[in-house]
């Protein structure tokens, strides 16, 4: 039996006390333990920001790459060794600003990875500037007169991009978040989990309490059916007095890694190189 201890890392944590990232870290470890995943079979690909420091603070294979480029790296890893459990992790800046193009295409391709976006609605590590997820009118040093643009809606974007698993979690509800991460990992295909995360240093509006007063679990609602895309799209627009969390949309379609003939029999990395097989390769040039 695995325990949380198996996922302990000695790397000292560099987050601010009170940061929502601590809860997310906890939920992630919980999910791994509950799924019985070995640290060695997990890879987390993270970007640059506060959120991407996460994998250093637990024990699992880690590729802490570039700002905004988690998904291509994760795709390369998954296609090369699909036996691995591959996650990608980053902030809203990382995923929705710098990495926006990879986001929409990874969802379309439905590669079997789980993507966690810690959305604190600002660029945290660079000291709190406005991100594409910041509220309309949000004041920061890069929008001193308030952001003139409404925030993007990543849930709607995901649904429109044909994402096969779209969920929203909240760092303040570790148990529910653990559940979502487990579902996401178990889902065969691209699982997008946006996590509402407080930032005590730079986001004074969307605080832990602010969220607590608003979030509700949409999956508790009898009439709500996540396999109904139109319903999901409609509910994804909700943001105000009530903010739905839970699995918003879930559809079944083949994951990219199940469609690639080269790895139908075994992972690419296990196939080795067989120089003998190249003997006839020059034939077509004769």
């Amino acid at each position, binding site marked *: 039996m695995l325990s949380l201890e198996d996922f302990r890392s000695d*790397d000292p944590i*560099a987050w601010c006390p009170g940061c929502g990232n601590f809860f997310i870290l906890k939920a992630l470890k919980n999910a791994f333990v509950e799924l019985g995943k*070995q*640290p*060695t*079979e997990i*890879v987390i*690909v993270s970007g*640059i920001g506060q959120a991407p*420091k996460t*994998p*250093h603070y637990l*024990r*699992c*294979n*880690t*590729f*802490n*790459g*570039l700002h905004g*480029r988690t*998904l*291509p*790296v*994760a*795709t*390369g*890893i*998954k*296609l*090369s*060794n699909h*036996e*691995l459990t591959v996650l990608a992790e980053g902030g809203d800046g990382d995923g929705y600003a710098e990495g926006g*193009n*990879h986001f929409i*295409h990874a969802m379309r391709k439905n590669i079997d990875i789980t993507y966690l976006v810690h959305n604190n609605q600002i660029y945290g590590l660079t000291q709190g500037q406005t991100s594409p997820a910041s509220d309309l009118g949000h004041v920061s040093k890069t929008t001193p007169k308030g952001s003139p643009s409404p925030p993007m809606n990543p849930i709607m974007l995901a649904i429109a991009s044909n994402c096969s698993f779209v969920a929203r979690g909240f760092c303040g509800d570790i148990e529910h978040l653990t559940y979502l991460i487990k579902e996401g990992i178990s889902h065969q295909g691209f699982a997008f989990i946006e996590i509402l995360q407080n930032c005590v240093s730079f986001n004074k509006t969307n605080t832990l309490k602010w969220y607590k007063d608003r979030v509700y679990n949409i999956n508790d609602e009898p009439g709500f059916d996540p396999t109904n895309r139109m319903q999901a799209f409609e509910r994804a627009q909700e943001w105000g007095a009530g903010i739905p969390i839970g699995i918003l949309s879930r559809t079944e379609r083949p994951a990219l890694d199940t469609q*690639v*003939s*080269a*790895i139908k029999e075994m992972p*690419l*990395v296990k*196939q080795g*190189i067989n*120089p003998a*097989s*190249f*003997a006839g*390769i*020059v034939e077509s*040039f*004769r």
Partner: protein
Amino acid sequence: MSLDITIRIGGQAGQGMQSIGYIIGKIFTGHGYHVFMIQDVESRIRGGHNFVQIRIKDGPVHAVGDKVNLLVALDRVVIDEDLHDLAENGVMIFDGAKTGFKSDNPNHLDVPMERLAKEAGKSKVMLNTVATGAVFAVLGTDLRPLQDRLLKQFAKKGDNIVENNKRCASAGFQYVKEKFQDLPSYNISLRPSRRGKMLINGGEALALGAVCSGLKFYSGYPMSPSTSIMEFVGAMAEEHRIILEPAEDEISAINMAIGASFAGVRAMTATSGGGFCLMAEGLGLAGMTETPVVIVLAQRPGPSTGLPTRTDQADLWFAIHAAHGEFPRAVFAPGNAEQAFDIMGKAFNVADKYQTPVIVLGDQHLNDSYFTVDEFDTTKITIDRGKIFSDDQIPSPMDYKRYAWDDSGISPRILPGQTRAVLYAASDEHTEAGHITESAAVRNQMMQKRMKKIEGMRREMKKPVIFPSEKSDVVILGWGSTYGAMKEAVEMMNRDGLKSRMVHFSEIFPFPPMDVSAIFSKTTRIFAVECNYTGQFADLFHFETGIPVHHKILKYDGRPLSPMDIITEVKARI
């Protein structure tokens, strides 16, 4: 008498000049001759003025000729613009009815190619096969090998297509034979069909070299002149179980390749200048995380979009310095198809051994030109995946350090999924264990560790090709795809009594250790030969060896350097 004949087939994009050239090239390669063929095309799909130019010799051939012996004009614009390139006594095949061109020069053969195509092949698009038949008639060879080739080429498309093609070839052939009986034919006799040689272009050779070195993962976004590499890997993917992943952009392409390599397979991408710009950040990521990756940078004239379908060698300094900060990388620049094939194997070995990015510079001239080569010997390929710990080699599983100090700079990797340890890789400066650090001491140690690899890499770099071996005062210095032009120029100059030798680099950075005094003395006059504006390699050479170059022979109009470009300049300057 020795044979050396140059054929140009010109026309609009879409008229199938490539296929004529390719068929000629295949047949002559298969029957004892050597062939070199370039493509000169515009950045469009239909129309315009394009040509292929093929040179056939009974000995090795490395470069284009300056004069055309046989011009095949599929379109009027070719007659208008290319006729002046015809050698004295050269022959032109054209379609008077189609082009409205008239000539009473007995060497201008009016062949109603379009009409014959419609008659014999039921479609005017088969005019290119008619033209091929006509070419064979002028060359004075048998029709048979052409018919055989057409069968081989079109077999997959069905009997009907094969038959129509054969009929068209025959129609063109017979028409010339009958109508132009007075024309002194070349009377080339094809030698018995022979194995051991093949026809391949540089792009194919790069792709083949990669595949035969165990390439398993290719991610890319099309960009001329690199696209053919991607497409050719695609053609081989099914059989050799390679994943070809079309990326949404080049940033994704390089990051996917890095991911695949991190997971443990040999991975590459290919692109051209604009895409390489976008990959620069990923290049640095590979450098910092010490992830092997091979990038083919197929050069074309810049800056920016430039001339997409033409050739240039102006990305050398950029390749050497791309990405911020300092980290090891290797840069190769093969000069022909053989080198292209071999260097890909080496590129993967160096990448794996030194856990570092490797850049292979191609260009449109290398990638799109066809060479007759000895059949590649795939059994000679050695594969060195570098230091990768198996599970039982991991010294202390709970404390495995991905970036453990080693005097060579190389730390043994493990792959994610091994059961005894996990690994941390980070783009931030990191500890030996791979965690983010702020320590000045650790920073110094890690910089030294990474940079130490350069010493080892430098020792791997091959010295330049020097030809001929006798010393001479005139030295033609070059790199990459000018190899062929340099070779021919030196041969010609020596034949003409102008003693000279070539010094050609295909392994460029880290600059190979070399005893320059063996090549250069006080009386040496060095002519650097490159396709760029500033003479980038000349500067690098000067910088690395301390030896200044006396003259730069530079061409930057997007067209390949010819032997005569070199000879003319050399003669003018000595």
